């Protein structure tokens, strides 16, 4: 598994404005659609950061942050204002994905990229859990509240229970989002992805890396659902 990098033109980090103007709304729409489908299926994930991942890696961390805020503020028209405070969690994820790949070289290999997604999950939880606790009193009506309840029943206090359930759900969610985002980026024309160091494969191996990553994320999710979520009485 090799990583490829090519410089952006003559050593500059500049990207065409047309790409930014096109990709930012598309990424925000992808986030909103992902979140809406996730909500409709009542999955214990979020799936509202795939576009953030794509924008942060392709365009840069702060463009990803813009996508995150547009997602949560724009999505409030559909889902109500409940998502607006979590825009900051989306921003945190964009910064870690963007700086991780573009500045720290954490997209250099499959293992590093997996680790980056774990880092994103931890960073997002560090921002989201206090919001869940102090803004929403510990429960937001999301499917992951069942895992929080399971930890609380096991004797954990509210703060520990919310942090633990948020990290667990976020881990599965960000691994899935990170690898779906990787698949989207690898499907784009190579001139749009130049200057970005990502696990690069040839032929079907390109698909294989993303599929394995997504399967690992889904496996995490199934484990939580089968083991941690309380069974109905």
């Amino acid at each position, binding site marked *: 598994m090799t990583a490829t990098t090519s410089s952006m033109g003559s050593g500059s980090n500049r*990207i*065409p404005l047309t790409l930014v103007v096109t990709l930012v709304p598309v990424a925000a729409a992808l986030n909103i659609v992902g979140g809406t489908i996730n909500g409709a299926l009542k999955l214990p994930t979020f799936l509202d950061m795939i576009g953030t991942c794509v924008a942060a890696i392709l365009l840069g961390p702060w463009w990803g942050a813009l996508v995150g805020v547009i997602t949560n*503020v724009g999505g409030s028209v559909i889902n109500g204002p409940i998502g*607006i405070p979590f825009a900051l969690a989306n921003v945190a994820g964009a910064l870690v994905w963007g700086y991780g790949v573009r500045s720290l070289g954490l997209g250099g290999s499959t293992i590093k990229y997996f680790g980056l997604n774990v880092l994103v999950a931890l960073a997002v939880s560090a921002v989201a859990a206090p919001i869940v606790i102090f*803004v*929403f009193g510990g429960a937001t009506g999301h499917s992951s509240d069942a895992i929080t309840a399971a930890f609380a029943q096991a004797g954990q206090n509210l703060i520990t229970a919310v942090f633990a359930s948020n990290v667990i759900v976020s881990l599965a969610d960000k691994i899935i989002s990170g690898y779906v985002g990787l698949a989207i980026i690898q499907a784009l024309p190579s001139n749009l992805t130049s200057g970005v160091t990502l696990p690069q494969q040839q032929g079907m191996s390109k698909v294989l890396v993303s599929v394995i990553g997504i399967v690992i994320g889904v496996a995490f999710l199934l484990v939580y659902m089968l083991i941690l979520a309380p069974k109905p009485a």
Partner: protein
Amino acid sequence: MNDTSGRSVGPREGLGAGIIALGILAAVLPGVVDQLPSVAGGGSAAFVLYGMNVLIGLFVIAAGVLSFFIKD
């Protein structure tokens, strides 16, 4: 990825876009904070607004610090 025919943007403009995003969030929050379904179960509207503004402020400070180091 150079665009020889049109305008291009770099990390500096990206940072500007991020700060604009945080500004949008800071502007929108006061209008919706009392509509959050949780304010009943969580903190008061003023407390929520205080906490969210502290968080936004931290991100703006980080953006300001990064502006000294960003090169195009």
